[in-house]
């Protein structure tokens, strides 16, 4: 059977693009791009479904597959690390050629088998879809496939249960209420812990990087404002170091200024930088 010219146009426009997108699955490095390729194929399929007298499936394809399933994929990609790129270097010897060969072989066999699949004019679905496609589907579903439908229900329960078993972590301790948190903070005050949240690193300092301690209201640097990890690794910058850097910077500027302006002006600039210098800063280390 031959389809109408419009359908042919649609097919020949979409099909190459879909194959191209699908091939993207084989070659793109980033998983997100692969997902987008698949989505393109799926939407393309939805359009082809509609063209093939299956409007209901077309809609379901967009809603369920592209809308839900692929979104789920994207969610997981986010969890796993959306930026992670896949190296395309093959590590298993021969696997690439074997894979390509088998893929090509499979395509060849299926194409030969399927390629001869029209000997008589196809029937078309005009009759079957007389009561509208979804209704016709519903009738077949509820008349002939009740068992399948019910079992599919079980399958969905299984899926939910599976997701729960594998990913849901039960809360093991008591839930922390705001009151409990507040009480604990007040109690910890006695041990010298701060009542308020820790200051963010870099606050009030001249440099607001993560590794620069914040300055307290008294101008002292607060070491605990730097993330613990950086401190353990010894990657935080002490206030002294910051100040020293500041000073060199200022000196550079001053030197530059000296060239153009008077010596008194540079003297003023030096005193302006000095309040950051504290007596505690040096001996803190």
């Amino acid at each position: 059977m031959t389809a109408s010219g419009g359908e042919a146009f649609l097919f020949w426009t979409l099909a190459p693009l879909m194959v191209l997108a699908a091939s993207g699955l084989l070659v793109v490095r980033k998983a997100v791009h692969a997902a987008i390729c698949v989505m393109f194929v799926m939407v393309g399929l939805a359009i082809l479904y509609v063209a093939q007298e299956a409007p209901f499936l077309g809609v379901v394809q967009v809603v369920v597959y592209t809308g839900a399933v692929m979104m789920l994929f994207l969610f997981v990609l986010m969890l796993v690390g959306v930026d992670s790129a896949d190296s395309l270097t093959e590590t298993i010897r021969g696997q690439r050629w074997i894979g390509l060969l088998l893929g090509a072989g499979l395509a060849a066999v299926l194409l030969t088998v399927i390629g001869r699949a029209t000997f008589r004019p196809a029937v078309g679905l005009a009759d079957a879809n007389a009561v509208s496609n979804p209704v016709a589907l519903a009738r077949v579903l509820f008349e002939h496939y009740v068992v399948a439908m019910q079992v599919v229900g079980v399958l969905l329960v299984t899926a939910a249960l599976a997701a729960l078993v594998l990913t849901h972590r039960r809360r093991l301790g008591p839930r922390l209420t705001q009151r409990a948190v507040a009480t604990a903070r007040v109690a910890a005050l006695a041990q010298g812990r701060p009542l308020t949240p820790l200051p963010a690193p870099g606050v009030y300092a001249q440099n607001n990087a993560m590794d620069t301690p914040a300055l307290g209201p008294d101008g002292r640097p607060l070491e605990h404002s730097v993330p613990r990890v950086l401190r353990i690794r010894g990657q935080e910058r002490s206030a002294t170091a910051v100040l020293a850097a500041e000073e060199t910077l200022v000196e550079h500027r001053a030197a530059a200024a000296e060239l153009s302006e008077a010596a008194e002006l540079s003297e003023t600039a030096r005193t302006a930088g000095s309040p950051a210098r504290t007596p505690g800063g040096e001996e803190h280390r």
Partner: protein
Amino acid sequence: MELTNYLGLAAILFAIGSATVLLRRNSIVVFMGIELMLNATNLVLVTFARMHGDITGQLLAFFVMVVAAAEVVVGLAIIITIFRARRSASVDDVNLLQS
């Protein structure tokens, strides 16, 4: 245009999907390959339904979609579990079990 072309497209998509399983190392991409295979099958079913004038084929495709959705949930759950434990989503890293 022959309806067979749809089947040809499906066959190519199916083969690309299976090649993905064999070639890619990111488990999520591999899994997408399997989804592609299922989608290709759906196209075959829909096309055959049209050839036979029998709407059952579309219903079968519908079932496949539902089953695939359930499968995706389980599969992604397993992938997440593995990722949490190993910080890797590469299928090649999952090879402690061998002889």
